């Protein structure tokens, strides 16, 4: 069980939106995690520095929140094998599909990109099917 947190989730979502707005207003870039990660992996072509700084900030703030005493609920309910397999599949899929929850879901949809709408509907559907099959058919 996890607690239903509508207000905290709405506020956190607004912060994600602000992050995307800042990156667009300042650098003219989409705040998509897959694209930013791809940009710091070899072979690096250009714009390494701001991407690395973004990644550093993304790790730093939950750590700072923790130090400030903010409780951040966290539980990994799957096996290490699932994490390894899921990780590779997420990496390959999001790169092939040109984006993930942040790039398509938050940024692309807001720009009215039909590719992002199609991508979002597709991955939301396959995620739900996968969870259903794993939990209720296979009972993993």
């Amino acid at each position, binding site marked *: 069980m996890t607690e239903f947190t509508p207000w905290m989730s709405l506020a956190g*979502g607004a*912060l994600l939106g602000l992050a995307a707005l800042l990156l667009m207003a300042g650098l003219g870039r989409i705040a998509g995690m897959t694209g930013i990660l791809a940009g710091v992996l070899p072979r690096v072509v250009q714009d390494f520095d701001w991407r690395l700084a973004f990644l550093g900030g993304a790790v730093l703030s939950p750590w700072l929140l923790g130090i400030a005493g903010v409780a951040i609920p966290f*539980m990994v309910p799957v096996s290490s094998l699932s994490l390894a397999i*899921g990780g590779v599949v997420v990496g*390959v899929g*999001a790169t*092939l599909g040109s984006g*993930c929850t942040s790039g398509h879901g938050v940024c692309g949809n807001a720009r009215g990109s039909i590719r992002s709408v199609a991508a979002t509907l597709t991955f939301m559907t396959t995620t739900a099917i996968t969870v259903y099959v794993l939990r209720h058919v296979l009972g993993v």
Partner: protein
Amino acid sequence: MKSLLGLAAGLLFGAGIALSGMINPAKVLNFFDLAGHWDPSLMFVMGGALATTALGYPLIFRRGRPWLDRFFHLPAPGAIDRRLIAGSALFGVGWGIAGFCPGGSIPALALGDQRTLIFVAAMLLGIGATKNVLARI
């Protein structure tokens, strides 16, 4: 200056992921588990994020160019093709298996659970390999 702006955006992003609950695989998986312990919170994350970007982007684009670059780096509008759909479908399968998406997993590294590292290492392998294969075709 560009790095400073990247850092600020990253800090906002990480805080948003942590506070919204996207950092927590258990919560993410429960959102998709309609037949089980459904937790609708992530609808509010998406709602809050999309409302903010949908309102803000038009104001930003009206300025014609970003503060620190000459133009906006936007993907050219294109058709929905097989690669987009197959890739997105695959991404969803991985997300359902692990409970982490790329944006959730990087901030989660701050929480010090070694299992997050397993996911991130595997994901970077997938992104790096696919990027280099795509660059060749």
